[in-house]
Each structure stands twice: as C-alpha cells, then as structure tokens.
C-alpha cells in the first residue's frame, strides 16, 4: 500500500482553523437554545396550575399501581407514598433537563479519555492519526462538572428525593427504612465529595495525558508515549470504579428505592457508544471539510465497527437488566419498568421503544454490511441515530423519577440540548486549534498511516 503514501509528509501538517463563521453559528445556536428554554419556561410557568392538577390525578393513579405492587411485596407499603411525596413545581423540569444534559455530555466527554487510554494500553497503532479528536473531548468536563454540582445545590430535594433529612429520622412520619439503610453511601457530604472527586480525577488525568501528547509533538522520542501508557492505565483503573459509582450517583439515585446491579455497566455502555458516535461524526465532518486527509476507508471501517459492536454491547446490557427484572418479577424491581411502560399515563412508552429502535435495531441493520461502514454518508446517519438514541436513553432514565407525569418534549428539552451541544462543539473546536491535527511524532504514526484492513 506504500504507493498511496508516496508523499505523506505534506499532508501531516494540518492546523485546524476555528473560523469566525463557525463561531458565529455556534453563538446563534446557543442563543436560539436559550430563547427556546426561556420560552419553554414561560409556557411551563403559565400552564403550571393546569398541569399540577393533571399531575395530581396521574400521581394518584401511579400511587394505586405502586400501592398494589407494594402490598404484594408485603413490606414496602410506605414506599409508594414516600417516593412521590413532593408537590410538583414547573422549575423541576428545568432542573431535570439541566441534569440530563450534564450527565449525557459528561459521558461523551469522558469517553474521549477512555478511548485514548485503552488505545494506549493496547498499544494500538491504527487510531493514532485521529487521536486528537477524542483527546479534545474531555476538555468539556469542568463545564458539566460545575453545572452538576450547582444543580445539586440549587435543585436540592426537587431532583434528589433522598436529600430530605426527614427520611432518615426514625421519629419522623416520613422515615424511610430503605433509604435510611443506604445512608452510609448516600448522604449529602459523601455525595458531593464523590462528585467533585470524579470530575477532578478524570480531568486531571486527561490533562496529564494531553500534556504528554502535546509535548511529544514538540520533542519527539518515546518518553511521552510511555508516560501516556502509564497514566492512561491509571485512568482506566480509576474509571473502572468511578464509571459505575458515577452511574449510581448521577442516574440511579433518582429512583432512590430501586437498584439494579447492571446499572454501572449499562450507563457506561450508553456513554461509550454515544462517545464513539460523536467521535466518528467529528472525524467524518473534519474529513468532509478537507482535514484529516490521511484517514482512509480502513479507519472509517474500524470506527464503524466500534459503533456497531458497542451498540450491540449496550443492547446486551440493557436487555440483561430487563431480563433479570422481568424473570424475577419482584414488585420493588419491576416498578422501574412499570413506570416506563404504563405509568404516568403511558407517556414514557413511546420513548422506551424509540430507545431500542434507535440504539439497536437501526444501527444493527444499517452498519452490518461492510460497505455501509466504509461509506461516510451511511456512517453519519448511524452516528446521528446513536447520538439521538442515547439522549432518549438518559431521558428515559432520568425523567420518570423527577418530573413524572409532567415529562415531555417541549421547547425546554430542545433548547437545553442545543445549548449544551453548541458549548460542547465550541470546546472541542477550541481544543483542536491548539495542536496539529495529526500527532506528528507519535511512535505508531507510520502504522496508522498504512492502516489497511480487508
């Protein structure tokens, strides 16, 4: 294949240009998002009284379902009442959306670091020429981290039922033995410490590996490569634990009574494939704008395989969680699927199936053929399906436990996603300008340039 790369050197010098036009478009996008959120908030605040009545009616229905299930279990009679004791205020939907998008974009960002780390650990060569793209993604972590910590303090009980002190007080009528039993892990102090710890560890380790990578561009040699392997591996060890605990903290605590042993894997799988799709989409977009000239069809094919394989992996974990609960048929576990299937007037049933369609059926059938993984247009469609699909996945995990019957898709949802997406793209583009798009002194660069698979 040497003939394809007779003049490799001129194409390796690629500086990404963050054009003022692109900056303007992102600002407009963000402004439109803000306007949509403001409009949505206004509409919600106006419709508040009406919706609240509806909510009460729905909540009553849900309580009955809860009650029946709880009685069947025998000892969880208090669960149904404690779980939805708070009155609904429209601002809850804003907080829920802020939280949802923070969790989702945190995942996509941190997966960039995850990807370079396991590539370093495996001493993979093929991914080197586009390594700057996953490398640029985790720079967004401080933004989502700050928003999450702020949301936690500002939204308080609205979002996190378990932060209510009365639940832990035996004398209180609201005392909840199940939540009280989780006290050693699930208490506000430890929760905030954990949250800060995740973001600090992820960000610091990324900062180090990013530093080595940029220094390698300047000085060459293999020292930085070896250091990257070391710190990348350290990140993997950290992430092995924190990806699971973060999934419990960020998502599973919303349905405080409920737990699933598959949840850590499930969320990691969701984050991972969404991150891979974002990465692939970015690479395609850069290539279509004339960058990354050395990325060939074989790289695209392998990226497509990653998206294909981890879509299946996500489905595997998603179904495993479902099957265990379905088969065991314990009321305190099935409540999770009952809420999403028939609870709250059935508003979560549609997104529940959209989730499976966009994240499994569609990419599975579309990306199965070799040619579709090598055709950028097709790969692009699959990536968009996965990215939108996993937004639905998190939406479905977060909304029923927070806004319940008041969930839906309105200006707030679209606006908030737009703001986060524009900010994320800005952050990635800004990082891409900081270095040559191809890591010119990476020891595995030659291998990557000649990547050729059948």
């Amino acid at each position: 294949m040497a003939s394809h790369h007779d003049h490799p050197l001129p194409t390796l010098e690629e500086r990404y240009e963050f054009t003022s036009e692109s900056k303007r478009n992102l600002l407009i996008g963000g402004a439109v998002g803000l306007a949509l959120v403001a409009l949505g908030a206004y509409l919600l605040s106006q419709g508040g009284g009406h919706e609240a009545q509806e909510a009460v009616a729905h909540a009553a229905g849900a309580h009955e379902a809860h009650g029946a299930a709880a009685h069947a279990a025998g000892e969880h009679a208090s669960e149904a009442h404690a779980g939805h004791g708070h009155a609904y205020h429209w601002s809850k939907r804003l907080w829920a959306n802020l939280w949802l998008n923070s969790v989702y974009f945190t995942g996509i960002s941190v997966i960039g670091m995850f990807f370079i780390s396991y590539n370093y650990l495996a001493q993979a060569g093929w991914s080197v020429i586009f390594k700057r793209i996953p490398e640029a993604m985790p720079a967004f972590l401080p933004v989502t981290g700050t928003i999450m910590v702020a949301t936690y303090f500002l939204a308080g009980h609205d979002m996190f039922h378990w932060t209510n002190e009365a639940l832990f007080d035996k004398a209180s009528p609201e005392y909840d033995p199940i939540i009280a039993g989780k006290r050693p892990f699930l208490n506000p102090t430890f929760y905030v410490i954990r949250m800060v710890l995740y973001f600090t560890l992820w960000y610091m380790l990324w900062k180090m590996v990013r530093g080595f990578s940029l220094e390698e561009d300047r000085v060459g040699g293999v020292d930085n490569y070896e250091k990257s392997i070391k710190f990348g591996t350290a990140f993997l060890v950290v992430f092995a634990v924190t990806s699971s605990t973060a999934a419990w903290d960020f998502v599973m605590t919303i349905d405080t009574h409920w737990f699933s042993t598959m949840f850590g894997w499930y969320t990691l799988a969701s984050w991972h494939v969404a991150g891979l799709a974002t990465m692939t989409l970015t690479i395609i977009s850069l290539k279509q704008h004339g960058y990354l000239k050395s990325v060939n069809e074989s790289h695209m094919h392998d990226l497509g395989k990653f998206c294909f394989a981890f879509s299946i992996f996500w489905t595997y974990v998603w179904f495993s969680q479902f099957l265990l609960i379905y088969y065991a048929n314990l009321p305190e576990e099935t409540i999770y699927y009952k809420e999403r299937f028939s609870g709250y007037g059935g508003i979560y049933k549609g997104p529940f199936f959209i989730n499976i369609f966009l994240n499994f059926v569609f990419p599975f059938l579309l990306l199965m053929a070799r040619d579709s993984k090598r055709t950028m247009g097709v790969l692009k469609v699959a990536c968009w399906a996965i990215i939108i699909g996993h937004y639905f996945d998190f939406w479905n995990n977060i909304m029923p436990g927070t806004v319940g019957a008041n969930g839906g898709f309105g200006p707030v949802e679209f606006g908030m996603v737009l703001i986060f997406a524009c900010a994320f793209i800005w952050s990635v583009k800004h990082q891409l300008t900081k270095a040559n798009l191809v890591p010119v002194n990476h020891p595995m660069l030659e291998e990557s340039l000649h990547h050729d698979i059948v």
Partner: protein
Amino acid sequence: MSDISGKFLVGIFDDDDVILSAVKKVKQAGVKVHEVYSPFAIHGMDDAIGHPRTKIGIAAFIFGTIGCLCALTLTIWTMGIDWPMVIGGKDPISIPNFIPITFELTVLFTAFGMTLGFFVTNGLGPSVKPLLFDPRCTDNKFVMAIDLAKNKLAESDIITMLKNAGAEEVSVKSI
C-alpha cells in the same frame, strides 16, 4: 479445490514485497494470475491479484438468520405449542424469555456456518488432500501459480517475465 486441472506455471519467490510487485507487473502485462500461496497474509495481495471480495459476510448473515429462526421455532414450539409450560408466571410463549437462546443459537449457527463455508470453498477437509503447487509455500517461500490455459501469452514469455520480476525458479506443473 480439487476440480482444478491443467497446465500451470509455478514461480517461486523469496520475499513478500517482491512477489507483490511481481504480481502487479505481470498483471499489467496482461497475464491472469491463478493464485498466490504464502505462509502468511500479504496486505494488498487480494486487490493485486484481482480476486473478488469474499462472500463470507453474506453467508454469515444467512446462517445467522437461519439460527435465529431455528431458535425461535424450537423455543416457541416446545415451550408454547407441543407442551405448554408456565414458568415464573409468564405466558408459555413469552419472547423475552427466549431471547438468550435465540442469541446463542444465532451466534452458534453463524460461527459454524462460516467455518464450514470456509472449509468447503477452500476445499479443506479431514480426508481431502490440499492442492499444493509447492510445499515450500507453507514454510519460507512465496508461490505464484498461473493457469496457462487461461492466458494467451506464450509460455516462454511469461517465464521470462516472472524471472525478471524476481522469481527464483519457474517450473511447469500439470495437475
């Protein structure tokens, strides 16, 4: 496969790069290369010889679909129709229960189907004697076979061409 017969020109090479460029050279001169035998896979060789792409992916899909249908038939018929059984309070025919078996049999049929398909298309089997133009291609030599019946050029011309392209020795073999 064993249905190959005729007169072949067999060129022996010492290096994978040399044989790759040799294939490109003789192809350019209009010679049809029957096959190249090598101790390991050579990047770009398939394209150089001009082999069509393998259909093993299509075979995998078909075998997988058969496996999937077999598993669904098996579970639905045994659990729901022939002797309906209620397990865990579920309907006799409850698809989520059958998914693990469906998944496993799909994978099993795909894997076995592909392996068998590979053996059949390559004429490999327990008692089949594989066609070897030169046994050294399983050790340290690279072998190019040219079917003379399918080439219009004179035998001597092709021999000269192969030697010029770096062949260590060229022989004629009838099968």
